[in-house]
């Protein structure tokens, strides 16, 4: 061994997890979302129509309507369109015109829309907005999304970029519209072992100063809850706005809400819980969580799984032509820590770009170990396959983190009032059946 070299051992996930595309037919399985939808249609085949409303400037309305027509009719990439891939059609219920592309005009259009409709009668709002950066908060995107969400409407935004890459946008759009209408496109076929409930948690997220006089920052937390098939169940947010350093309180609010709703939906108390977080869990957060679970569940096992890609590690495999470290392969850094490749060489996708960014996964378990690191690798790997906003086979992050990130962009841009409207019970009961934030 030459100076500076170290040897690591590793392992690999032999087969891609299977996805299930029918609620009753467990042979309707496939490893690739695109092919699964094309062959079997969606997991949930109970809806035949999606009722859609359009909000758009006058200049773009025809383009948006054509897009819907193409989705229904089908394209080269999506032969048979919505009826083939999702077993339903999209019906345009109404078109609302935004007078200009100013944020104010979109907000006006949004307000006139929410005053006119009950969220029970519209499944999704499709809005054409100008392309703006995710990091600016005062944009038509966030302005409109906040108004719609705070009144119980889920929305899908499209921009000029959607049309520039229209060939490949159709299916992702279709999948997002279908799931935002409250239906499930696919789930994992087999269960993830030794776990009942998986939480994609995010705490201490900054809320925008919009419509607020004070200068003290306020924070919120939220959690996306998944079952052991990777099926997204619901999202819960903190109703309280916290000040800095109150992570234990946020965790308490989120965990109790999540467990209660899980119990009500599944008819059992989750005993084995996995928490996914993009940061490293702090001592205080771990202690607070265990205390809450002690009080709330009693006998439990919890795994704190932190997953991040902001690290300097890179791995290569010189045995394959492109040198990338294959998807599903991982190396052990120690018995609780691995580097997992999710975007390296694989048979299920040919289009890949650059050196794969590995996921650095660290696990801490309490009160004792109940899941081994290989099972955690499988869990994280499986969860990369169920982001319903895209039908591509190669997703780097697990959906637990992906969904959290989507909400964090939103919460940084919307006002306290909007957030509190979204989490209030009468709106939450409508929204939490749909991943409205993706």
């Amino acid at each position, binding site marked *: 061994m030459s100076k500076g070299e170290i040897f690591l051992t590793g392992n690999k996930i032999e087969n891609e997890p299977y996805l299930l595309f029918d609620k009753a037919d467990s042979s309707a399985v496939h490893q690739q979302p695109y092919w699964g939808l094309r062959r079997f249609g969606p997991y949930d085949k109970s809806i035949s129509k999606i009722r859609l409303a359009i909000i758009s400037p006058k200049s773009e309305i025809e383009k948006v309507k054509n897009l819907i027509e193409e989705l229904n009719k089908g394209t080269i990439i999506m032969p048979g369109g919505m009826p083939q891939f999702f077993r339903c059609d999209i019906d345009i219920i109404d078109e609302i015109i935004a007078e200009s592309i100013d944020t104010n005009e979109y907000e006006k259009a949004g307000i006139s829309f929410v005053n006119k409709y009950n969220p029970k009668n519209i499944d999704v709002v499709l809005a054409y907005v100008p392309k703006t950066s995710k990091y600016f908060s005062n944009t038509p995107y966030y302005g409109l999304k906040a108004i719609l969400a705070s009144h119980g409407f889920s929305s899908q935004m499209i921009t000029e970029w959607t049309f520039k890459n229209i*060939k490949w946008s159709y299916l992702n759009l279709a999948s997002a519209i279908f799931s935002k209408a409250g239906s499930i496109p696919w789930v994992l076929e087999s269960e993830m072992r030794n776990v009942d409930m998986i939480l994609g948690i995010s705490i201490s997220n900054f809320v925008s100063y919009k419509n607020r006089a004070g200068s003290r920052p306020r924070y919120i937390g939220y959690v996306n809850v998944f079952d052991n098939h990777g099926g997204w169940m619901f999202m819960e947010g903190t109703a309280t706005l916290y000040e800095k350093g109150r992570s234990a309180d946020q965790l308490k609010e989120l965990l109790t809400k999540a467990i209660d709703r899980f119990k009500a939906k599944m008819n059992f108390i989750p005993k084995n819980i996995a928490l996914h977080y993009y940061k490293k869990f702090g001592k205080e957060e771990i202690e607070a969580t265990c205390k809450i679970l002690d009080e709330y569940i009693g006998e439990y096992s919890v795994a704190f799984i932190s997953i991040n890609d902001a690290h300097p590690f890179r791995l290569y495999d010189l045995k394959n032509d492109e040198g990338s470290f294959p998807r599903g392969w991982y190396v052990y850094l120690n018995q609780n820590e691995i580097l997992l490749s999710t975007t390296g060489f694989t048979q299920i996708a040919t289009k890949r770009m650059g050196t794969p960014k590995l996921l650095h996964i660290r696990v801490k378990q309490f009160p004792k170990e109940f899941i081994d690191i290989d099972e955690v690798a499988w869990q994280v790997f499986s969860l990369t396959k169920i982001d319903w906003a895209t039908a591509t086979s190669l997703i780097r992050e697990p959906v637990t983190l992906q969904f959290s990130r989507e909400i964090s962009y939103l919460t940084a841009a919307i006002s306290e009032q909007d957030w509190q409207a979204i989490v209030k019970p009468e709106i939450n009961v409508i929204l939490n059946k749909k991943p409205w934030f993706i």
Partner: protein
Amino acid sequence: MFQMNNFLEIESKIKKYIEEELSQINFTERPRDPLGFSIYLFFLLKNKVSSPATDNIIDWMNSWIDLIINQEKFSRFVDREITSALFGYYTLKINKTLKVSIDESKLVKFLSLNTNNNLYFDNLTYTILILLSLTDKRSDIPSFNRILQRIKDAIKEGTIINDAKNLVFSSILLEKLKDKDSLHELVNICYKKISEKDIRFDDRIYYSWVIWNYRKLMDEHFPSIRDFVEAALTNALTLLEEDEVDESIKEMYGSEVRFGVSRILLAILFDLIVEFNKLQIELSPFSYKYIKQRLLDLGWIDAWKEFEYSLDAFKEERLYDCCYNLRQGLLKVWIKIYEKLEKRPMLISPGKSVDISPLKEFLKARNVPDETVNLIGRIYSYVAERSHSEKKKIHSIDEVSFGIQLTFSAVEYLLRFYDQETKIG
């Protein structure tokens, strides 16, 4: 050409695919798709498929019923496990291969705890299969009619088509319940969708199954029903093949690494093609070609037309018409040969049925063995007796299929005899 080898081939390929798949399953492990196997079992037994694979699945189902219903050893998938075991129980019971008894009242109680929105396990497919399996216990299940109404509502509202496999299962249920009105409504929905040419590829098998099995409910549309089913079946094997796709799709979404086929779809396809093939007749391509060619060469077009009509009538299940045309075709050929070789017309009394004695004597006089002549005579009588619906002589399709084979053999023999005689002459 009237050849159905292709459909028989498809039937045999699908049967082989199912049997091979079953032979590879390790039934000692808890299966991931018990409902798929339960549906396979239902259709294999319905079609009287007997093989080691069928025996294995019967044995497995008996133990599965015991494990799930009696011992209640469920995994997390209680819904699919209960549905598969209960449907398996029903299948084995009606096929008299059930070796395990269950406490039905306990099961009914368990199901009532898992009813929500008038659906078992919140799933329409499971609900239909469970109701079908429990039709005999109808009076013991207080919620039976309410749940059944939920299914009928789905038919009335047209939402039953959202998941096309439910068309098949609900039609079986309605038939079992003798609910003619709802069944008729369901078949109408299917026919309407077919007429609108608005059915996706895989779903065509489910629609075909319904309209083919209940075609008697819409006799007037038989030709278009037949065309639809035939087209669906002709393309059926592509379900087992990889699609031809645009290269850019492969680049973006990857090539389809391992494609799968739904067991429910495959089982229903198998049943459909077996049913469809019952109305097919396999003729030797050599005989068919020879007969057609000779009759057309000889200019005996009217005789050939009779055979064409008979085959069409058979395909359309007009069995008496089929036999009538067979009789007419055979008689025309026989008379023409007589008249050509005897060089005189055959005397036929107008208004009376033809007396075939002179035709038989003529053959005997030309050294055709008595046994052969009598056999041709009996073939003539066989189809003649079955050519009048009022006589009610036809008891099964197989009788008519047999009549076609016999008549074509007799005609081929007569034509070869004629060729021989004219060569000598």
